[in-house]
């Protein structure tokens, strides 16, 4: 068994909606291991996005702890959390979320620029990352001139280019047609296999779940199932 890269213990999150307190997470204990290709599934409102936000340091829990690559997020201030996201976490969002004024290559390079990587190395790594997701030759195109699937591939390349400890993907196929979604998830699974990068994917897309090596079910803010799968398409 690999060592855990993400550890959640007793994680709770409650939102105040007017006078009412709405629980989103109710004591989640979870360990994501290095090299996992895990899906986090559940109906809408089950807490998938909230849990991913807690792990990604985008939001703070009401109770419990999150540790990413040995660093407890609760002990980090805003700037330290930002640095942690920059260096240890890659994000892939449902709505692609590329920077519209930057080309595909510049979007990927942006993370490396924030890290202070030199121009030559930056360009080389960005081009390699784009080639890895099958976008060689489209480096200079801006998001508006890329299809949805291509934009999401750029987002995957951006998430992976800085070699993060874990990639968190929230409904990455929700805005894609089925063929493109299939290609994207196959790509992510392949990258997981090839480089061992850890993926935690929030989804209720059965095609994505079919590729996962580990499937976690979340219901009403609680983990109700957590199974490792030997016969996933990724494992085949």
């Amino acid at each position, binding site marked *: 068994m690999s060592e855990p890269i993400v550890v959640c213990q007793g994680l709770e999150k409650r939102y105040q909606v007017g006078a009412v307190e709405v629980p989103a997470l109710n004591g989640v204990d979870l360990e994501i291991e290095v090299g996992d290709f895990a899906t986090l599934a559940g109906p809408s409102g089950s807490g998938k996005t909230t849990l991913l936000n807690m792990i990604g340091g985008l939001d703070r829990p009401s109770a419990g702890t999150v540790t990413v690559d040995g660093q407890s997020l609760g002990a980090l201030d805003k*700037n330290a959390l*930002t640095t942690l*996201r*920059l260096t240890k976490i890659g994000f892939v969002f449902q709505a692609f*979320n590329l920077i519209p*004024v930057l080309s595909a290559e510049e979007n990927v390079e*942006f*993370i490396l620029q*924030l890290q202070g990587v030199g121009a030559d190395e930056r360009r080389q790594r960005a081009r390699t990352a784009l080639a890895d997701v099958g976008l060689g030759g489209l480096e200079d195109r801006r998001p508006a001139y890329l299809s949805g699937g291509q934009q999401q591939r750029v987002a995957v390349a951006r998430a992976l280019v800085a070699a993060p400890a874990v990639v968190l993907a929230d409904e990455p196929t929700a805005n894609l047609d089925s063929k493109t979604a299939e290609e994207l998830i196959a790509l992510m699974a392949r990258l997981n296999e090839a480089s061992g990068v850890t993926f935690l994917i929030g989804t209720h897309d059965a095609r994505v779940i079919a590729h996962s090596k580990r499937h976690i079910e979340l219901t009403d803010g609680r983990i109700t199932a957590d199974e490792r799968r030997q016969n996933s398409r990724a494992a085949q």
Partner: protein
Amino acid sequence: MMGALRLLAPIAWRNLWRNARRTAITLIVVAVGLWSVLVLAALMQAWAISSRDASLNLLTGSGQIHAVGYLDDPTVDSRMPAPSAALTAVLDAPPISIWTSRLRVPAVIQSEYKTLPVTLTGVVPANEKQLSTLPDQLVGGRYVSGPDDDTVVLGRHLAERLKTRIGKRVILMAQSADGTLAQRSFDVVGLYAGSTTAEDEFVFTGISAGQQMLGVSDAISEISFSLPDDTTLPDTIDALQAAAPDLDVRSWKDLSPLAALMNDFMDAFVGVWLWIMFVLMAIGIVTTQLMAVFERVREFGLLQALGMRPRLILLQVALESAMLVGIGVVVGLVASVATIAAFSGGIDLTAFAAGMDYFGAARVIYPSLTVAQYVENSVLVWILGILVALWPARRASKANPAAAMSVGT
């Protein structure tokens, strides 16, 4: 910092053109605002200088020296001796460019038809021509030729009122040094044009002729001096007062309070106009930048999620504002320079001559600004533009990434 600028500058520049129409509107607001500030400043300054010069170049100069009490009672009794060696030494040295002595007393002028009050002004013509514009404003005849010339030069309007003309004789009457009435006839040799007030008041003759008529030997009423630059005026006044402690040394600001007031008023008016225009510009800048920030809440959340620190987001939005306002400032500056240069030959306000005379200004004004004035106003607008844009920038940097990312999903 340079690394951050290298990272953010291209993004900020491209962001400017995401909404070209909004950017264009903001640019126009800034450019027109700065243009109006600079052009108005040039016009107001031209008017103020014209008004001041018209007043000072008449007779006042940069300052004057009198016997104590002359300004309250400008009669022959308030005369002073010819300047001492010590005073002459200061008057002859820089920064004073020219000075002259005058005899200046109230008098009555009489023609065959009319008797009117005037100020008899005995001058040293060679010096007077360098200090006053009146000798160059002749509309007929000649100016007084020397200190001993016992002819007179009248204002055109006064000559009309007296129904006299060049070649006729007039009689001047004034109190003499011994308290008796001195009177003498003079040939009219020239007529000058100026403001109606000046034309009616001043009658010029040679200073020695006037001294002889009043029996004051070489005594004078005033010394008028001129400086090329007003900045040295306070020190010059001090030096003259030290050289002539018994005399009353005054700057033009004391002697012509209206001209001084006009000068200050113009400066204040330009300042107020600058602030009015700036408030309008600020409203435009803040509104457009706030709209830009609100439209991009999700993007700012994304940038934070990806690992961009809030201060870099603040810097990026501030950089966008700096570029936006900066372009507007450059456009406004170029337009201002072109506009002011187009009028550098002078704006003829003859159509408003009566009004201009009332304010003591010349009929042609020459708008201009110094390079420093262009730069100071432009930089001020630019910096203030950036400062007001910090508010929307701060809002952008405060975006909560999780909340921002949920917008629109």
